[in-house]
């Protein structure tokens, strides 16, 4: 792959990412399954970079999963999103930082719909006002939180204690980057680097010392695909997509998978467990599975955060092989202890733990 060609494409997809004063909206999946990710983001932005980030406890789900599952109508989801914008407007913010790629896709789709069909915007204003008495402004700047980490990737690199380098061999770690479909595949202009050769995650991996791998099924769906999973009878489609993707990346011997979408992270993580249970197949080296990390988790590791504070133990595929390669010291006994030292129940069948 020629870098000059990728750079030319990236130059065409540079979006403006606000520098400060964000209205932050959480992700349903991320705050449940990878709680350390959002925690790292808020801590990094507020305490390391000194930025102003506000979140409102009245913020709700965007209903994106219901929308893509065909149970929430468009008018409803537009009104829910309008309410989020109203919360932002009432708090005096103009920049929105969105933690979830599904939500990010929903927001971009709705804003584009309003641009092309102004009548829909007026109807939404009316619905929201009748239901809640609220009014709203459309955000002046809309960024996914991976855009924001991308923007500050060099600041993270400057603070790196554990660059993405195999401590034993000195070689860069081999990174699979996987963006969520709804990040830029619907509207490439909203994604850093566009849809075909996105730069948002590869830019981070390279800035932190890793080597990004291009493999044949790089653009393929993680396997979630909403209805492919949500309708139980379709789950064979879901997992067979994941098998196709991992079969394709395996020969490249990746050290980790880096994602920016909650669904992708969840499915590329958990389906590895399922595939291993179903047919005994693993995709990492030495019979191990490949750790799947969010960009905040990876940034945290690079900056020297404790892996268990980042919540890596909540993944199905445990990250020990990666931690060893990066030369990160950790105590496996602390994995499932609370902050005040109480032992939590231990999960069975942890993958990648000897």
């Amino acid at each position, binding site marked *: *792959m*020629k870098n*000059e*060609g*990728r750079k*030319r*494409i990236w130059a065409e997809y540079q979006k403006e990412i606000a520098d400060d004063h964000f209205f932050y909206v959480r992700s349903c999946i991320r705050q449940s399954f990878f709680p350390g990710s959002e925690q790292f983001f808020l801590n990094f932005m507020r305490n390391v970079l000194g930025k102003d980030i506000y979140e409102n406890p009245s913020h709700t789900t965007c209903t994106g999963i219901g929308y893509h599952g065909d149970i929430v109508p468009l008018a409803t989801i537009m009104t829910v999103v309008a309410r989020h914008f109203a919360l932002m407007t009432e708090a005096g913010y103009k920049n929105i930082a969105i933690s979830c790629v599904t939500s990010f896709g929903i927001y971009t789709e709705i804003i584009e719909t309003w641009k092309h069909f102004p009548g829909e915007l007026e109807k939404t204003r009316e619905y929201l006002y009748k239901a809640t008495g609220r009014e709203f402004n459309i955000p002046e700047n809309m960024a996914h939180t991976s855009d924001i980490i991308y923007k500050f990737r060099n600041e993270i690199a400057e603070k790196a204690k554990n660059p993405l380098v195999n401590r034993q061999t000195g070689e860069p770690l081999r990174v699979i980057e996987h963006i969520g479909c709804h990040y830029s595949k619907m509207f490439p202009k909203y994604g850093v680097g*566009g*849809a*075909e*050769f996105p730069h948002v995650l590869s830019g981070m991996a390279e800035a932190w010392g890793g080597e990004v791998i*291009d*493999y*044949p*099924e*790089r*653009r393929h769906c993680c396997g979630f695909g909403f209805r492919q999973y949500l309708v139980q009878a379709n789950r064979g489609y879901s997992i067979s997509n994941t098998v196709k993707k991992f079969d394709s990346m395996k*020969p*490249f011997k990746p050290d980790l998978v880096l994602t920016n979408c909650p669904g992708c992270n969840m499915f590329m993580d958990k389906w590895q467990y399922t595939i291993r249970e179903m047919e005994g197949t693993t995709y990492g080296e030495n019979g191990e599975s490949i750790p799947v990390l969010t960009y905040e988790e990876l940034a945290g590791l690079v900056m020297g955060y404790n892996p268990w504070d980042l919540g890596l133990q909540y993944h199905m595929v445990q990250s020990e092989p990666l931690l060893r390669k990066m030369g990160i010291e950790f105590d496996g006994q602390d994995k499932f202890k609370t902050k005040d030292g109480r032992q939590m129940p231990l999960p069975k069948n942890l993958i990648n733990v000897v």
Partner: protein
Amino acid sequence: MITGNVVVVGGGVAGMEVAGQLARSGCMVSLIEKESSAGGHIKEWHHLFPDRRNSMEVTDYLARQINHDNITLLTGTTIARMGYGKKVFTVDTENGKSISADAVVVATGFDLFRSERKEEYGYGIYDNVITSADLEVMFRNGEIKLTDGRRPEKIGIVHCVGSRDEKVGNIYCSKLCCITAVKQAMELKEHLSDARVYCFYMDMRMGGALYEETYRESQEKYGINFIRGKVSEVGETIDHKLIIKVEDTLVGRPLRMELDMIVLMAGMEMSKGGEQMAQIFGLKTGENRFFAAADHHYGSNESNVEALFFAGSCTAPMNITETISHARAAAAEVICYLRKAER
């Protein structure tokens, strides 16, 4: 014989032909070409469809056409400004020349679609993804090889790159790419008899003289495989083979195939030079961004500006036969206009 000064903008096939025709009729012609020599795209092409004659034969003909005392060829020249008053154009060039003309012919041709804009095909990113124009250069050099020097064994030809594609803003058909693909597929087989060649097409548009016959020959005599489906993406395997995804719409199944080389049939677009002329001369353009002729049926050389005419593929994709015919028609229009003006 007729008298009059004419500026012809563009020294490709159309510009050279119209200049030659006008000069032979008695006009004094200034032929303006932005490149260092006249000839246009055809200079880069090796063989021409449908009969695969050497393109040099046509360029030699065109060179003879403009070898006339009445023609001043100004290469490396672009137009900066234009004024029109009292039935006379004043054309100022970027390098400080000022030319008076009774009529102007715009023959700015086309630009090849920049294939890197179809990001999913990986042109400029993956080795061995090339364009139809790149392949002609290889034909001319007499050697078809991969970047590592090996001979390709499996080659895919992708039709409609930048044509009939709403995503890139070109909904029109470039018209020449299908027959170019057929010609190049046959030539590939002539160079590499063991190679397997696959054409991925949406529709085979074989509307020109001898096109359908050539298409049939390519299948019966050369064994070219035609697969009806649009390539959705190109990637690379661990051993640096190209891998494509495509739907075979006749079989109704998705298809994945490893290839050594991919040739992209780049479509035609309004040229950058043409866009500049549209601004300078205030010329109307159509939805396809090519110049809009005054009438599709009986005024395809006439513009919205008095005494300014179009010749060739600056108005729509055309093959060389059509371009030369259109250029001759433009010359006839200019002569007709100058005669009327004389009266």
